[in-house]
């Protein structure tokens, strides 16, 4: 990911620290209602990917990637912040490790596409951003890792993962609707608007 926009006056102002930490916590909390486990696969369906897409659409490229990184660092330290109270290093050596690590470039790509939309990113752009980042990139990272860990072929792993595709597509649609609603109710939730305000307000 390029970070051409990451040269404001201060590299990492307090406003960004606050937004990044609150969104990392929000992603963690979205896992609370409990993961729906589909029998026979280890990757639980949760609302956490919804949180990852929302972080991308609202925080922008590098802040959202940082929020996901913070969450994953805390998970690695053993805190039960993933859906269903999972945590610890086991999740990074398990079969769904790639899907988790894929959240990072996924959120960043979502943010990047939304940032290209300027001050008022439209619904179509938001849907495209959530699909590309929250579904495309996450699957691209997750399937090869799962294949490597399990020793199954890429094709069979992709077939197993296809069971999650409908849910993820629905979550991408929901994420874009929610991001659009949020950005209307709170214009500062558009990455470009937020950046301008930080520059002007100092």
């Amino acid at each position, binding site marked *: 990911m390029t970070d051409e926009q990451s040269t404001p006056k201060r590299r*990492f102002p307090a406003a960004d620290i606050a937004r990044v930490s609150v969104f990392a916590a*929000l992603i*963690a909390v979205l896992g609370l209602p409990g993961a729906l486990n589909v029998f*026979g*696969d280890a990757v639980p369906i949760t609302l956490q990917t919804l949180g990852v897409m929302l972080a991308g659409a609202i925080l922008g490229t590098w802040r959202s990637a940082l929020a996901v990184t*913070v969450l994953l660092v805390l998970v690695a330290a053993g805190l039960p912040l993933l859906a269903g109270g999972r*945590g610890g290093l086991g999740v990074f050596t398990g079969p769904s490790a790639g899907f988790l690590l894929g959240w990072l470039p996924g959120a960043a790509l979502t943010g990047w596409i939304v940032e290209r939309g300027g001050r008022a990113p439209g619904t179509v752009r938001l849907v495209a951003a959530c699909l590309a980042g929250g579904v495309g990139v996450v699957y691209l990272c997750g399937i090869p890792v799962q294949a490597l860990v399990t020793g199954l072929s890429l094709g069979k792993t992709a077939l197993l993962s296809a069971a999650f595709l409908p849910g993820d597509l629905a979550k991408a649609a929901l994420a874009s609707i929610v991001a659009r609603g949020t950005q209307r109710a709170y214009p500062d939730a558009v990455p470009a608007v937020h950046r301008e305000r930080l520059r002007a307000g100092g």
Partner: protein
Amino acid sequence: MTGLTGAYVPGGSILHRLPAGAKLAGLAVSCTALLLLRSPAALAGAAAAVVLLYAVSGVGAAAAWAQVRPVRWFAVALFCVQLVFADLPAAASSTLRVVLAVALAGLVTLTTRTGALMACLERCLTPVRFAGLDPFRLSLLLSLTLRSVPVMADLVTRVRDAQRARGVERSARAFAVPLVVGALRHADALGEALAARGLDD
């Protein structure tokens, strides 16, 4: 959520006393080794080694099972799929590989305090200084996130109550939009409070 504590089991074994960095390095090496082991006999040896390590750590069977439990159905499914597409040795070794990697990582989690692991991860993150980030701000970021988890959980409860009061329990939009807007309001107030304390000076 039942408190934000890790799965650490107190103890005085040699595994508990090893520094966190050494355990993390050992975990990385052994997971790579597991991927390279192909024969069922070698993996059986690895399994014996993992069981021995658990015995040395003295964390108990219940704690050990809690670490492996999340992958139990996956292990069963993987074994069946491999049995259909390949043969018994291949099925056994690939299933064993997944379970052992998870068990080893769980052992590090069980024998290392969250604080020690966090300190180690923060040390690993110090090179970000060269990318223009300040390690103090990073550790503030981590602790603020931990503090924000209960705040966000509370916000979820309040938004759910509001939803019920408005009679729109079923609408996902009526849940998520107020939640995200509330989170942003909280974040921006928090940012102003940090700036008021001179964090940006």
